């Protein structure tokens, strides 16, 4: 699974990193974004909705940084 470490990056950088990474994976594959910017919690689901991809799971790393798993659908 592709994983992006966006700790310390402010909006809109985590979403930009995600948008760059998703086209490089196969349809059906998942990209994980680790992002501690509070805006990512809203903007990553919003990006998935706007782009037609799926937020499959969210969680928290050991250091407390949230992660978001996004499946490429198109």
């Amino acid at each position: 699974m592709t994983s992006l470490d966006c700790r310390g990056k402010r909006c809109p950088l985590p979403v930009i990193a995600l948008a760059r990474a998703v086209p490089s994976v196969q349809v059906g594959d998942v990209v994980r974004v680790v992002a501690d910017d509070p805006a990512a919690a809203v903007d990553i689901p919003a990006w998935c909705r706007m782009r037609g991809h799926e937020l499959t799971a969210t969680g928290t790393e050991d250091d407390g940084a949230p992660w978001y798993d996004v499946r490429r659908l198109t």
Partner: protein
Amino acid sequence: MGVVNGYLDAATAAPLHPVARQALQAALDGGWADPGRLYPVARQARQLLDAAREALAEALGTRPDELHFTAGGTEAARLAIDGVRAVRPGVVVHSAVEHSAVIKSAGDAAQVVGVDRTGRVDEDAFAAAVRTTGTAVAALQSANHEVGTVQPVAAVAAACRDAGVPLYVDAAQSVAWGPVPAGWSLLSASARKWGGPAGVGVLAVRKGVRWEDPRPAAPPVNIPLVVAAAAALRAVVAEAAAESARLRALVDRVRAAVAATVPDVEVVGDPDERLPHIATFSCLYVDGEALLHGLAREGFAVSSGSACTSDTLRPSHVLAAMGVLTHGNVRVSLHRETSSADVDRFLAVLPSVVAQVRAEAGVVGL
């Protein structure tokens, strides 16, 4: 281009109405004395204050003796909630998209009711929440200050009445456009949102509502500012039908043109049930602060709910509650001096400003 032409942030502060300026000047000359004294110049000040109070009460749909003056909308919100909870402790039910002044006043006592994608509160969930034992007061704005969506005040007021819970309505964004639906117990507004001077807030508390002014002593009323605020409100209410139709058409044009001419943009807020003067949108991959600076270079003053433009570096709680994009956010809010040509010029420069920010960030074509 004058300063006012590119000023598109009326939802923060509307330019002073010309009638308010005249009234302020006259009241500075005639209303400086202490209205509590008995000599003629004091009686004159008293009469000015009484007339202003009556005009404000009429425009707000309340009675003169139900009005309390504050230093602004934020203090009025705090007085509304603290004043009820002083005599009736308990939970504060409020929507997730209230003004931060309401959210701060509710504090740990809050029970928050969610909103849909347009920013409209879930009225069934709100009604269920106020039935919860121990609700001291419910708070619902008349319309949202960031996205313009009108809230279901009448339905929520009925639910509050059935539950025996007082409803506080923050009407700051809507009083210039018409009366709030009946059924509220407390209502607040702020003069600088309607073209009055900054530093005047009003709180109306209906007779019979259990409320206690939490201030040790109410500060002296600034009569010239209150007189100017009342003159402005009377003027904007008289102009409301024509102005709201004119601005609604401009806002519809902004919403349609932004969606058509800016790629990857999300125009937010209810398309129909909305305030006439606010249009809000978010641009994908765009830094909100860079966008504000780009628009400022073109002579436009707007506001943003994006995290990078806030003191706390947190995104707007309104946009977050709606689940819409928080970055690259712009709120445009129009006023009586905004012309059709001003809007045309804004719409003409916006696509290139957004394109330039995206080009600088290297995100074109993502």
